[in-house]
């Protein structure tokens, strides 16, 4: 394992202020490490990778890593990513968003990116809360959970991000957690190489804004919870059925080969240019 940490440091922008802004024990740092390892394992040059981020703690990832990076506006990261991929399909475009970013303000862009099957990887860091702005409830906050804006427990059902992306037409859909780092490396690298729209939802603990309000004494407790309350989807008898014990399935939920929008577009372009010649 000797080179794991050195490798990550090789990809960081050391002219930025470190340690990074994430709170102690925040899952977002682990996801950043996993993303770097995945890109490195694929042998992709840094310049072939574009990291497009929204606003939120999750969006800060784009500041620290030495790929091509765009720190966009809240909820609109996928629109920038779509433009980049259409303009230069050779780039590997990875779009990092929080749950608030991807599902609340940006929910419309998410379903349409999935429907179009644009060749972008959406990395959705789900901490079930608006972390950066002080812990307001998001559309991924589980029903009954406490947030700053739901002090008696949320009355609304949370989105199941994986289910929603599957229904909207994404051709690769997976869920991992910040605790299962080795699995997460695999999920992210498969997603990056996937031709169409790929979604990796990551359960990524926010001890500061979500954990404290929901009976987790500290960050470690949140990771212990992830360890005992998740189940590998391949071990389930019926992967389409939610486990009765309430555990959260993790793994790959859909992986089908369908050409991305950019491929279909360039196919059409070739055809029309051939006709005109």
């Amino acid at each position, binding site marked *: *394992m*000797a*080179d*794991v*940490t*050195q490798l*990550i*440091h*090789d990809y*960081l922008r*050391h*002219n*930025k*202020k*470190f*340690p*990074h802004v*994430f*709170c*102690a*024990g*925040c*899952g*977002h*740092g*682990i996801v950043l*490490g996993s993303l770097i390892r995945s890109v490195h394992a694929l042998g992709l040059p840094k310049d072939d990778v574009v990291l497009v981020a929204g606003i939120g703690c999750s969006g800060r990832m784009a*500041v620290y890593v030495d790929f091509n990076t765009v720190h966009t506006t809240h909820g609109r990261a996928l629109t920038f990513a779509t433009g980049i991929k259409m303009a230069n399909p050779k780039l590997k475009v990875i779009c990092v968003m929080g749950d608030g970013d991807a599902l609340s303000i940006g929910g419309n862009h998410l379903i349409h990116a999935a429907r179009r099957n644009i060749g972008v990887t959406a990395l959705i860091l789900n901490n079930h809360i608006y972390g950066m702005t002080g812990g307001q409830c998001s559309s991924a906050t589980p029903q009954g959970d406490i947030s700053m804006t739901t002090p008696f427990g949320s009355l609304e059902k949370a989105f199941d991000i994986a289910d929603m992306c599957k229904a909207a037409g994404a051709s690769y859909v997976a869920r991992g957690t*910040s*605790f299962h*780092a*080795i699995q997460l490396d695999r999920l992210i690298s498969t997603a990056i190489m996937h031709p169409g729209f790929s979604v990796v939802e990551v359960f990524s603990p926010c*001890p500061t804004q979500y954990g404290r309000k929901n009976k987790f004494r*500290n*960050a*470690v407790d949140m*990771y*212990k919870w992830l360890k005992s309350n998740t189940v590998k989807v391949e071990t389930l008898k019926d992967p389409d059925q939610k486990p009765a014990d309430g555990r959260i399935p993790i793994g790959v939920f859909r992986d089908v080969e369908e050409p991305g929008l950019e491929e279909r577009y360039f196919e059409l372009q070739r055809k029309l240019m051939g006709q005109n010649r």
Partner: protein
Amino acid sequence: MSKKQKGQTRVCVYPDWCKGCGLCVAFCPAKVLVLNAFGKAEVAHEDECINCGFCELHCPDFAIAIKPRTRNGAAQPDPRSGWSDPENEHGRASPPVRTAEPNPNPEE
């Protein structure tokens, strides 16, 4: 991952980057680490390390590194200039020295 043999590694914590979240302390299967009086991770039983890699894969702040032992013993890591190690035991050329470029966005 390498064989589960004790005593083959140097466990290096970089205190300036460690935020004391306690993940490495809580999950290390060999109980190598403790939180010290400053709330930072500290190596207490290095010889027990089985090189499982958990701490390196999970430290949210990239503040811990497991390195093979060398005759001289590995030096304390400094992430800003690469790990400084007299023997450079990975056979790699010295890590590139990063000169701090002026930050175009001063709030970051």
